[in-house]
């Protein structure tokens, strides 16, 4: 059944592009196809999802995005911008953010920018970790009302699992290597995810779990999360004693296979030995205890 669905999905990606190829493109139809691929890919593993969406974008929009943008009507350019936003969001690849920016600049020159365009642009810069571009863009776009923190790299060019930790009351983010020690629990979470909040509340209230998680857990935001240090500080205040940091590049964390929130990864000597996904109403205490037992010192 799954193989059939997958075959259908690839057929959509490959077949629809052939069907719409031709001298005159209806970009609304192309966008329909991209949205269809996005929807169908939501139950695929994350790397495959990104690959499918990027392939559909390249088939349907990339030629327009990298071609003569002046010859494209603003309504169509908006669709290209939205499509590039999708490719950038799922792949986190800078090449798509660059294409977004090229389209953005043409729309801006035509005075065809709405409130959503600068916000999407900023989010894409941040997610792709083009942080200096993000800062310049935010400064040049006061309507955003966003002041990004200072970014300080304390890790140099290292490629391992990296985090941006919130310091100086949220005014600075410091990039440093994640300290996984001999054992650790990495919790992928988001302050706005109700399931993540519920997990943090219930773990903090549980006498058995609270101490272990206070000592051993690192709560991390996925790369797709917008940087909002006030949000993180508020979360830490509400969910003491836990602390939260931003993942730098997800590709530096190849041992993490899903960035859905919350997901608990139990690390022993740098390897994931146990994984707990999601937080239903009854919680997952037994699974967490099982993970803690697996990483306990012998």
């Amino acid at each position, binding site marked *: 059944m799954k193989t059939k669905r997958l075959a259908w999905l690839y057929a959509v990606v490959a077949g629809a592009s052939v069907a719409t190829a031709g001298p005159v493109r209806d970009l*609304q139809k192309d966008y329909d196809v991209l949205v269809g691929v996005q929807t169908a890919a939501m139950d695929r593993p994350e790397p495959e999802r990104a690959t499918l969406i990027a392939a559909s974008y390249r088939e349907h929009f990339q030629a327009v995005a990298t071609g003569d943008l002046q010859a494209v009507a603003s309504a169509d350019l908006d669709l290209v911008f939205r499509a590039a936003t999708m490719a950038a969001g799922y792949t986190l690849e800078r090449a798509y953010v660059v294409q977004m920016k090229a389209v953005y600049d043409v729309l801006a020159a035509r005075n065809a920018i709405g409130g959503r365009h600068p916000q999407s642009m900023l989010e894409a810069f941040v997610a792709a970790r083009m942080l200096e571009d993000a800062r310049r863009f935010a400064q040049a776009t006061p309507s955003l009302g966003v002041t990004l923190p200072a970014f300080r790299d304390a890790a140099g060019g290292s490629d391992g699992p990296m985090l941006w930790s919130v310091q100086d009351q949220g005014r600075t983010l410091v990039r440093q290597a994640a300290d996984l020690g001999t054992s650790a629990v990495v919790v992928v979470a988001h302050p706005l995810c109700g399931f993540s909040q519920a997990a943090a*509340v219930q773990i903090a209230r549980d006498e058995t779990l609270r101490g272990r998680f206070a000592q051993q857990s690192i709560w991390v935001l996925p790369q797709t999360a917008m940087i909002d240090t006030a949000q993180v500080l508020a979360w830490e205040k509400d969910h003491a004693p836990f602390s939260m940091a931003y993942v730098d590049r997800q590709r530096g964390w190849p041992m993490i296979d899903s960035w*859905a929130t919350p997901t608990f990864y139990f690390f022993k000597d740098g390897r994931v030995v146990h994984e707990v*996904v999601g937080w239903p109403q009854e919680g997952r205490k037994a699974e967490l205890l099982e993970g803690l037992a697996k990483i306990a010192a012998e």
Partner: protein
Amino acid sequence: MKWHLILAAAALFSIACEATELGSRQGPAVIDASMQPALDAEVQRRRDIEQFLAPIKSERDLAEHLDTQLGRGSPLDRLSTHARTRFLGSLTFNERGLTGYRYDDLEAELGVSEAFQVLSLFGAQDTLGTLRLRQTTDRDAQLQALYGKGSEAVAADHFNYKCVSRATCEFGNNFICMSGCLTYIQ
């Protein structure tokens, strides 16, 4: 002034209906306090009422609305055919109503008042403040100010995320995962 009256009436209505209609027709609100995301209690109550009174709370309601209203003055008429199809295809419901939707076509094609009317069909007008919509009239500006002001209180609406079936939120470009989704994945 009019809005204050509406809110006051809604609050009074809530007292009357909470123990009876919400309880008997839909069962009691199932959100355990410990599971509650950072949603102000007053905002949650307002949202419960808006959703309770909304004409569309299920796929069945939606089908009926499309049968009887589309092309006859439905707020959905204001979306282009492509945009409407994409928007409708993205809607997710639980037993209490809408839990998530795709917002990009609303932002691209509608002004604040038009989006308000579309979202009101589902009792989801409270999410208006999270959208980045065109303002072309005074009413647009008033609505945006009214709903934008409380947007921090509805921060539990997870922008660019989708609630998925393993009690997790997953990145979903152009989706809003509404706070109510917490109750349906059990």
